[in-house]
């Protein structure tokens, strides 16, 4: 079983080109959304937050970045694999000398890379709006890559699972979006009342946001290793699920 490097690259390239086919949808709209959040929330809530000396704008930048990373990675990867299933073009992938590794590198890799490109653009845009700095740039980069990869994997699973456009939207809209908004994007968990603090602890996105914020600010709700561990565990679970999918041919082969 030799690795089909050219095949993996062909899929990767094709996906990336597909995702950037429309500049507006792929870049402009997430950038505009994030900028609006920064301006509106930053201005409206900044005054009322007591963050122990941290500027509110600088506080929400990692949160907003996480919001974009999660939604973009998931939706790009899920759409990427759902479309060929929908149009029937999946036949080619199934008939090609392409296995799990090539498929993942192609589809998940492209989705993750697109998220990374967006992350860079968003950080650039944010620096025009608020004053922030990154305490541990390398750690931040590593963490962003890890999150982009994990949620692109999740998106890939969703795309395989979905048998209609509705299902494709359900998890990003009904699960990820609320969890991210409640996950400390705009406020520290410590600002919540006792009960809600406990409730927040079961929201996995809390650890993601906290982790990224730690790499930016050098401090956060949880120590960095907790966030890192949780994310790696999530990544491994996704890989295990995908391994099972390919082994059984679930939703791929009849």
């Amino acid at each position: 079983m030799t690795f089909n490097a050219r095949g993996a690259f062909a899929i990767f390239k094709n996906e990336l080109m597909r995702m950037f086919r429309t500049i507006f949808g792929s870049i402009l709209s997430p950038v505009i959304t994030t900028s609006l959040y920064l301006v509106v929330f930053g201005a409206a809530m900044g005054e009322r937050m007591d963050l122990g000396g941290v500027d509110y704008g600088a506080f929400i930048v990692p949160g907003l970045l996480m919001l974009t990373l999660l939604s973009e990675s998931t939706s790009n990867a899920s759409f990427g694999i759902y479309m060929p299933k929908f149009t029937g073009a999946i036949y080619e992938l199934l008939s090609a000398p392409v296995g799990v590794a090539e498929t993942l590198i192609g589809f998940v890799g492209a989705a993750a890379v697109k998220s990374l490109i967006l992350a860079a653009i968003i950080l650039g845009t944010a620096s025009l709006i608020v004053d922030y700095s990154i305490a541990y740039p390398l750690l931040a980069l590593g963490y962003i890559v890890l999150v982009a990869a994990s949620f692109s994997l999740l998106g890939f699973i969703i795309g395989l699972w979905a048998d209609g456009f509705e299902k494709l939207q359900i998890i990003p809209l009904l699960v990820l979006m609320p969890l991210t908004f409640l996950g400390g994007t705009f406020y520290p968990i410590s600002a919540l009342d006792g009960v809600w603090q406990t409730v927040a602890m079961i929201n996995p996105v809390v650890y993601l946001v906290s982790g990224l914020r730690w790499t930016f600010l050098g401090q956060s709700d949880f120590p960095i290793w907790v966030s890192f561990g949780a994310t790696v565990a999530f990544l491994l679970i996704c890989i295990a699920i995908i391994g099972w999918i390919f082994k059984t041919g679930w939703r791929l082969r009849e």
Partner: protein
Amino acid sequence: MPEPILDIRGLEKTYKGGVKALDGVDLTINRGEIFALLGPNGAGKTTLIGSVCGMVRPTGGVIEVFGKNLATQWKTLRRDIGLVPQELSFDMFDKVIRQVRYSRGMFGCAPDDARIEEVLRSLSLWDKRNSQIRALSGGMKRRVMIAKALAHDPQLLFLDEPTAGVDVELRRDMWRQIDMLRERGVTIILTTHYIEEAEEMADRVGVINNGRILLVDNKDAIMAKLGRTEAHFTFDAPLADIPASLSAFPVHLEEGGTCLIYRGGDGTGKGKREVAEIAQILAREGIVFAGLDTRESTLEDIFVDLLNEPEVSA
């Protein structure tokens, strides 16, 4: 000695709902031949192709390609297998040439724009290479599917109803394409509903129904074995009886004795000879016939007969 390129033994597929689409298929395809798989809707043609090409997981049996087990060595073997599926399916918003390059890459081939150009030109797609696929006509879209399948130069090519819904001109064009591939040494397995197509293109023909192969043989042998000549001699004055001199021939009278019908022969010309003999005998005996109609049975008639027979031993 023909060299087998594809060897299928005891292939079975039962879909989740319980439909048994393939019921013990045995089939050997030889290198360089064009094989036509005929069968009515739902016979199992697409399932058979899908089992070789990876869309379907067989529930039983063995498939060998180039003498190697496909189940274990699929990754190497698939590089040399190409497929044009029944339905048009691709990223409609992409450009022709990009889709064809993509296919080539996916199958692990190094980029080769000269080869891509050759493929596109041979399918008259070169002028359309930068068009969005959705802007092409149905026939052109089908050619893009073929170009994608040829982009990695497969040795074994499956064409699932290549000419379904294609007009006569394009169908002939497609046949020319298939001929060109044959000259390149590509082995082709095509499915079709058009018997004419099998008659025109194929070296060998297989008939499948209800997931079972009913018959596989050389096209000419099938014609010889099952072919028939039918001749109608019509008379102005009805005959009371079949002349004794014709008793050796498979003839009978119809329409109150005004029509003598011959059904016989074997597709090798024997039928035609016998019809000529009958005509001479009638002339010699002074029986004047007003008209003569002869017709060779086509593969289509054979096919229909075969499917209508309740029990056929394969």
